[in-house]
């Protein structure tokens, strides 16, 4: 049995709910680890084989487990401080700021990183923020240069250099870039955003007691949201799991967690009141849950609008380049 190699962690770590990725430095290679919650897959890139590393700026909307934990603590904070004066407002503003910062970092400080060898060109999913990608590149360069030496000066004719698998590059060079496929014709994403805003408005009206709480209307809206989110998940633009699908997944998880959390909270409150021999009163929970529902739906709706605006600007940019 060969000796176990001690790997050193490289900057960048993708911590997803299901899928994770990281890069590790070995004695003569980089180990790319792709984890799928209960399974890890490894790929080695030997220093002597690495031809090029590329970092391309671009939006990456990734909901990490850290973001999920922050969201969970935000929910706890909201439930704890809603009764204080301006408590709900303060925590609500904090939530909007958190979402805005996530959108900012995802849209403007993100990147895609690729590694090229003679037989492969792979994406490195763990490097999705500009700063971690640059730190990783700085950490790797000395090791690769130590094995391969420095690039000849003056530089060779770079037009003649073949990087990556020959057949793939040849195909890319000979054929023009494929025209982008049209956006999905069923506007499920618009329905999802609309239903989120309607849900937020309805919850706010319920909380303000402008309308009577109606489980029928609430359930119908939730049903509509779930249907729209599922259709968005099924639709894949460019066959990729994009920002729309992430938002749809977050909406589904959020709705499920909210429903489950409300039920558990109500049950626990009732149990505590019964144990303390007090009359069971869960009415305040309905008000808080309406407020929470309103804020969650509003934040998701705003995130959806941000996704639409970013997509439009990307399409416009691409259209101007093509024309």
């Amino acid at each position, binding site marked *: 049995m*060969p000796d176990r190699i001690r*790997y050193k962690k490289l900057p960048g770590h993708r911590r997803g709910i299901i899928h994770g990725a990281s890069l590790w430095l070995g004695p003569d290679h980089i*180990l790319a680890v792709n984890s799928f919650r*209960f399974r890890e*897959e490894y790929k080695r890139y030997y220093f002597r084989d690495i*031809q090029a590393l590329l*970092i391309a700026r671009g939006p990456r909307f990734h909901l990490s487990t850290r973001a999920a934990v922050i969201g969970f603590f935000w929910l706890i904070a909201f439930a704890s401080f809603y009764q204080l004066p301006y408590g709900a407002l303060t925590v609500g503003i904090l939530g909007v700021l958190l979402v805005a910062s996530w959108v900012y970092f995802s849209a403007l400080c993100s990147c895609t*990183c690729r590694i090229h060898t003679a037989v492969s060109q792979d994406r490195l999913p763990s490097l999705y923020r500009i700063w971690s990608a640059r730190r990783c590149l700085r950490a790797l360069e000395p090791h690769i240069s130590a094995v391969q030496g420095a690039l000849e000066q003056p530089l060779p004719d770079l037009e003649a250099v073949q990087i990556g698998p020959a057949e793939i*590059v040849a195909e890319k060079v000979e054929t023009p870039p494929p025209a982008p496929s049209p956006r999905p014709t069923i506007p499920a994403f618009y329905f999802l955003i609309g239903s989120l805003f309607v849900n937020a408005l309805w919850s706010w009206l319920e909380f303000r007691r402008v309308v009577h709480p109606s489980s029928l209307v609430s359930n119908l809206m939730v049903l509509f949201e779930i249907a729209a989110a599922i259709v968005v998940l099924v639709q894949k633009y460019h066959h990729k799991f994009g920002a729309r699908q992430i938002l749809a997944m977050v909406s589904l998880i959020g709705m499920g967690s909210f429903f489950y959390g409300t039920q558990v909270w109500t049950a626990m409150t009732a149990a505590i009141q019964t144990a303390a021999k007090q009359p069971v009163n869960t009415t305040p929970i309905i008000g808080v849950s309406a407020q929470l529902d309103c804020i969650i739906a509003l934040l998701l709706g705003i995130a959806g609008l941000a996704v639409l605006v970013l997509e439009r600007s990307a399409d416009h940019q691409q259209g101007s380049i093509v024309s």
Partner: protein
Amino acid sequence: MALPCARCNAPLPAWELASGDTAACTSCGSSNQVRVFPAAVRSSVPVPSETALDGEAACFDHPAKRAVAACRHCGRFVCALCSIQFGDEVWCPACVVGRAGAAHRANPDTSCALYDSIAVLIPWFSLIFWPITIITGPGAVVFSILKWRQPISLVRRNRWRFVVAILTGLGAATGWVLLIGFMFASARRGAR
């Protein structure tokens, strides 16, 4: 330069790369930071002809190609394409695939089941439907003990997840024992 954009795979403009290490993709517009290493230049050097002439040793799998080495394990002649070199030794693809002799070193791990993650998450996931923790609590303890000696991830250095799983499982089991004891005691008091 046939270097594709990291985002959209469209070729990056060579004139930009010639003047620096960044290039804007003409297809998606994203700015690419590029580092090219000497391996890229070396791989484009044309390889001399490897055709075997009459009387020359030929590759076992490719009789038309000249042999460049013999497999360390089985002794078959291999051409430049078939020779798999690790340190000072050369193996043929068949020995590497078959993990024959020392060639098993050429088959590094490509995947691993994370038993410690499974063990630590069993009791927590089962909280969603908490009555089943009566099974999953002790189950997590047994599973952790059974899988303790199994190889864990290449990059994880310790087995703290197994420890957490055992402690959580023991906690769940203890909770159930106390609850059942309390229920029996209550029932006995009620009977009196």
